[in-house]
């Protein structure tokens, strides 16, 4: 009676129907719409201290070591692409989310939603990839689930992986920790994964193979954390690209971010592909890449350590944290002016005209 009335008062849909009657692909793009969906729909309802940080994973309070928990789902199409497949991505992705919490990944679960008709051979290949990826990063797959859905309802296969890791000693990683003067380091060329996927997708094909850079970053993260005690934030710039990642951190920390266009590492072929499609590499998805926000004093040492690791050979400083324009990321262009680096809006559609 009273209780029911109270409940229904809070149940009005937070995203007014007049705005979006249906969920759009853009709501999964990693940019503004995703942010809105998460904040208005999920975070507002499930509101709690750990969720509010909205980092790649949740760190449980108390205990020694503290534990981190993360989950990620993989719906990529095509499921096999140059440089990897959905299985490898699924393992590396959750391993990396845990690493971004400053944790050593330990155990993974995996839930499969398989579309009726998927060739057994494909499933086997995916399983082998997952095993190889798990071995490479030192995690064990300890539990899982399998479902099969009707033909036509599932894009081949969807995979969800969740993981638990132990936070490394001295690791104090939190997107709110970014401080003025922090240097922003990336471990290698950006925009590779997204372009590798575009290269296979229908309608946008290239003849020269660009391979995804998917890789487990936990080893690199351990190296980074050993080298510097002042590592404030770690983030892997997946969907939405480097631009969306730095914007999220700028907003969480209330600081401004200044990037240097000339410092951005971009491979020549990836640049060519972005030029043709009219894509801005800052918004293209990455895998096997991380951003480390490190206090100025430790940055040199951390950079050196990263460059001695196979996944960090091309590490470079691409920007810094500033007090100006709080919550906003800007970039100094090679021609001299500065411009705002906004969050991704909608899907990045290839620009033709």
């Amino acid at each position, binding site marked *: 009676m009273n209780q029911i009335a109270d409940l229904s008062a809070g149940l009005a849909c937070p995203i007014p129907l007049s*705005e979006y009657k*249906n*969920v*759009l*692909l*853009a709501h999964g793009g990693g940019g*503004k*719409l995703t942010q*809105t969906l998460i904040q208005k729909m999920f975070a507002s309802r499930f509101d709690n201290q750990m969720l509010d940080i909205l980092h790649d994973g949740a760190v449980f309070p108390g205990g020694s070591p503290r534990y981190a928990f993360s989950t990620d789902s993989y719906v990529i199409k095509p499921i096999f692409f140059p440089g990897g497949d959905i299985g490898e991505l699924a393992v590396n992705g959750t391993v990396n989310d845990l690493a971004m919490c400053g944790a050593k990944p330990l155990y993974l679960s995996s839930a499969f939603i398989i579309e009726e008709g998927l060739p057994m051979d494909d499933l086997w290949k995916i399983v082998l990839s997952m095993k190889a990826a798990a071995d490479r990063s030192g995690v064990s797959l300890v539990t899982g689930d399998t479902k099969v859905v009707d033909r036509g309802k599932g894009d081949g296969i969807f995979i969800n992986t969740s993981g638990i890791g132990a936070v490394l000693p001295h690791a104090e990683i939190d997107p709110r920790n970014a401080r003025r003067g922090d240097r922003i380091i990336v471990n290698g060329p950006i925009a590779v994964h997204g372009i590798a996927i575009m290269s296979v997708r*229908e*309608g*946008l094909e290239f003849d020269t193979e660009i391979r995804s850079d998917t890789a487990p970053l936990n080893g690199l993260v351990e190296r980074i954390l050993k080298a510097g005690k002042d590592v404030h934030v770690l983030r892997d710039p997946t969907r939405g690209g480097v631009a969306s990642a730095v914007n999220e951190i700028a907003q969480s920390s209330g600081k401004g971010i200044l990037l240097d266009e*000339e410092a951005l590492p971009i491979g*020549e072929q990836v*640049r*060519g592909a972005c*030029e*043709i*499609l*009219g894509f801005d590499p800052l918004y293209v998805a990455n895998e096997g890449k991380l951003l480390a926000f490190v206090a100025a004093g430790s940055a040199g040492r951390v950079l050196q350590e990263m460059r001695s690791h196979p996944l960090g050979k091309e590490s470079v400083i691409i920007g810094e944290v500033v007090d*100006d*324009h709080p919550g*906003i990321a*800007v970039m100094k*262009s*090679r*021609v*001299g*002016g*500065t*411009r*705002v680096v*906004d969050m991704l*809006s*909608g*899907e990045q*559609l*290839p*620009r*033709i*005209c």
Partner: protein
Amino acid sequence: MKYIDEYRDGDAAGKSAEMIRRITTREWTLMEICGGQTHTIVKYGIESLLPPGLTLVHGPGCPVCVTPLEIIDRAIAIATRTDVIFTSFGDMLRVPGSSKDLLTVKAEGGKVRIVYSPLDAVRIARENPDMKVVFFGVGFETTAPANAMSVFQAKKQGIKNFSLLCSHVLVPPAIEALLSSPANRVQGFLAAGHVCTVMGYEEYFPIAERYHVPLVVTGFEPLDVLQGIYMTVRQLEEGRCQVENQYSRSVRREGNRPAQDLLKQVFRVSDRTWRGIGEIPNSGYALREEYADHDAEKIFDVGEIRTRESPLCIAGTILQGLKKPNECTAFGRECTPEHPLGAPMVSSEGACAAYYHFGGYTGRTPS
């Protein structure tokens, strides 16, 4: 990358800006026609490098932005049909129609596909003989030959299920319409380099003479734009009104003749409505009678189209260069890239989108 990187050199840009400052003795208002040039100007912060008396206004050179609302609504109606695969360039998908956009049609189950080239659409038609494949042929003269080729090939190869929904606009009539408007304050033009790559620049001589304005055919990299500005200002300072070619590495005076021949074969010049501006006579292309079988406007009867523009959107004023995006009351508030009220906020070449993304928005500009 060759022929791109050299034209983005920071030092040379600084020097060009210095040159422009030295020769500018009066206030001048220039317009860059093409959306790609607007994009470059805002992205590289070129306006901040220019002397204060020099004003750049952004022209209607964004074909996505000027596609009439009625055609967008028609495209949406066609794309909603279950017997149609609707193909288009990526940019068109988020342009708001009267009630929704093509991306929403896709979300609701319509077969909408992005293609990179019109020939891809022809291939899709060949591979799907049971479906009607429509290609949304939008653009200026740069894209017209490519769209013409698609229809030409479809007819030649007997691909009967392919049709073109054509919405082509021409630049010179738009320039004349702008220049003959009493509200016009533009004194010199940076003409669109890629349009002229196809069409040449013969058409601009009578315009320069009739309206006494310098026209400089300009490229798209930051150095091209700066050089184009320099050449235009130099003409104005010297009291000249001639047609010059900054983008000579790509543009020839006569343009590309074989491409022009194909245009004449497939299209005829027609009157066109420009969204936000109105009808400009002889400012567009329509398919010739011989291609009626491949004309989506004739093939699909989608009933009466009643259009409805947002009352807050001042796209027309922006496209004519009479106002800047951040002077619009809805800019950044009711109108953002996620909730665009008009096309210039959606198209990545639209002035409003460029301003929003790169920070012309008050309170977001760092400098």
